[in-house]
């Protein structure tokens, strides 16, 4: 830690966070002090109804909705926190990765507020937001092993602290949440499919339809869900009764939970090698962490491997601005602020070195996604 960071570490900072990287326009005020963090407000304006007819997020529709909602959402967050802009110590905005048209809306609004009030700006990586989400109003210390699993990402990361992440594995095709959503879509469930599929699976028999689980036993910590997606889609078209649909939903959920758990246990074997019981912490974050079956399976894996288990409350699993405000506050305390000409990044891996040196996909012209 630099001397200036050490000087800050006992201070209390209050940060406005803004999140617009996908289909939620969100703003939040978080206070971070030596005792931990407090969420003073967290406003989320979801666009789900706007995208539902299309069966997925339409980037241009998302960007349009963000720019219409952004000021109302920020105002609501400030009002709910009961604070004025003079009470803030900094402004944090998601700068990527995500749908860049939306990212620019939140980042531009954040820059304007920072500039007008003379506040530092923190350009936050959305994935870092998910990484710190379990630290919202909870005592989860660094370092920890993180399973970040959402509609856009599926990664295992060794998180040593803010800006210090090492990627242990990532998906070689779809994200787990993407598999949930796409399989749900082929089963005729409404968007977003993950929660709908979880409801349908209640009481279903997960053993009726055997589904492939990729990469089991492999030495790395990567994921793959495309084979499962295809297999489930093939079965889905043959189903006639509600019972069959329920059993397939349960089988899909079970297969996803099984792969996430098996790959996580592999990561624990690597990550836990030289760590004492106190440093064996596991965190699951992202929208898929809201799934009860997935949570239960990961909790069991933690017990088996001697890891403590932490997950953010359900409201901070899916996209929100509280996690962006907290990541920004942690950055501010460390003196990690950004200039006002910082760019929005559609692609922005948390572990840039790993993404560049060991890309899972051949990186496109724009670089590795995550």
């Amino acid at each position, binding site marked *: 830690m630099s001397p200036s960071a050490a000087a800050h570490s006992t201070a209390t900072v209050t940060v406005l966070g803004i999140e617009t990287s996908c289909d939620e326009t969100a703003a939040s005020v978080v206070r971070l002090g030596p005792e931990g963090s407090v969420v003073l407000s967290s406003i989320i304006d979801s666009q789900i109804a706007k995208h539902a007819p299309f069966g997925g997020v339409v980037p*241009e529709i998302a*960007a*349009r909705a963000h720019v219409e909602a952004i000021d109302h959402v*920020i105002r609501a967050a400030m009002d709910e926190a009961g604070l004025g802009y003079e009470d803030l110590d900094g402004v944090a905005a998601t700068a990527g990765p995500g749908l860049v048209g939306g990212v*620019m809306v939140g980042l*531009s609004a954040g820059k*304007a*507020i920072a500039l007008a009030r003379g506040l530092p700006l923190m350009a936050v990586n959305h994935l870092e937001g998910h990484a710190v989400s379990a630290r919202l109003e909870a005592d989860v210390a660094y370092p920890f092993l993180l399973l970040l699993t959402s509609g856009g990402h599926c990664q295992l990361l060794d998180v040593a602290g803010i800006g210090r992440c090492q990627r242990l594995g990532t998906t070689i095709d779809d994200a787990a949440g993407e598999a949930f959503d796409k399989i749900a879509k082929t089963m005729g469930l409404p968007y977003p499919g993950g929660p709908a599929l979880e409801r349908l699976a209640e009481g279903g028999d997960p053993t009726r339809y055997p589904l492939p689980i990729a990469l089991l036993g492999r030495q790395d910590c990567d994921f793959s869900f495309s084979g499962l997606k295809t297999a489930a889609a093939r079965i889905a078209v043959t189903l006639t009764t509600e019972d069959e649909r329920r059993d397939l939903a349960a089988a899909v959920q079970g297969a996803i939970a099984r792969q996430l758990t098996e790959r996580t246990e592999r990561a624990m074997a690597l990550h836990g090698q030289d760590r004492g019981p106190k440093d064996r912490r596991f965190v699951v974050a992202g929208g898929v962490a809201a799934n009860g079956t997935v949570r239960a399976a990961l909790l069991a894996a933690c017990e088996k491997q001697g890891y403590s288990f932490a997950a953010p409350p359900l409201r901070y699993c899916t996209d929100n601005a509280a996690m962006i405000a907290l990541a920004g506050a942690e950055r501010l305390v460390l003196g990690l602020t950004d200039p006002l*000409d910082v760019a929005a990044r559609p692609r922005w891996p948390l572990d840039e070195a790993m993404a560049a040196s060991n890309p899972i996909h051949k990186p496109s012209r724009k670089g590795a996604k995550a």
Partner: protein
Amino acid sequence: MILLALDTALNACSVALVEDGRVLASQSEPMVRGHQERLALMVQEVMAKADLPFCALDRIAVTVGPGSFTGLRVGMAFAKGLALALDRPCIGIGSLQALGASVSPEGLVAAVIDGRRGQLYVQAFIDGHPVMAPDALSAEVAAARLGELWQGGPVTLVGPGASALAGIFAQAVVIELAAADPAAIAQQASIAPIVPPKPLYLRAPDAKLPGGITPPDLDL
């Protein structure tokens, strides 16, 4: 009244600080992309040049389109952020209105932006007053509309798409401005009613419903 005007809708990033019609400081840089990165620093530079604190501002003005979807969202989001943080009104000005106000108002003035895909974004003014709403038209239809509106006298075609209609009036003055004069935006906003900015895209998102169906009533 001190106004800060922002324009990122077209191929320039422009900022002007205007007090009662007098330009205190302004800056305009041509660019096709990069408005998001540049805008905040340009605003900071313009405020510094005029040596004014942000609390001295009375109004924020911003162009709302038509124009580059990304560009106009950057400008509007930034303007909304300023307005929130300073508790000042933010006023949206149409890009075509801003272009029209950037030239002498005498006679028929038509502001024209190339909307691509065979469309021109057009709005016409006579002696400074709008005589049609902003519209997306083919060159033929635009020419016919302007011909109907013309009552004799001088004609000015202004904007990045002006040359597309240059052939229809033999005597027309064609001014191929890449973007509006930000001082003109401030001037328009100083007399405009305080209405929150609403984007004017003039084109629906490219999104099809399952089965390739064009969705009804998408907001323009």
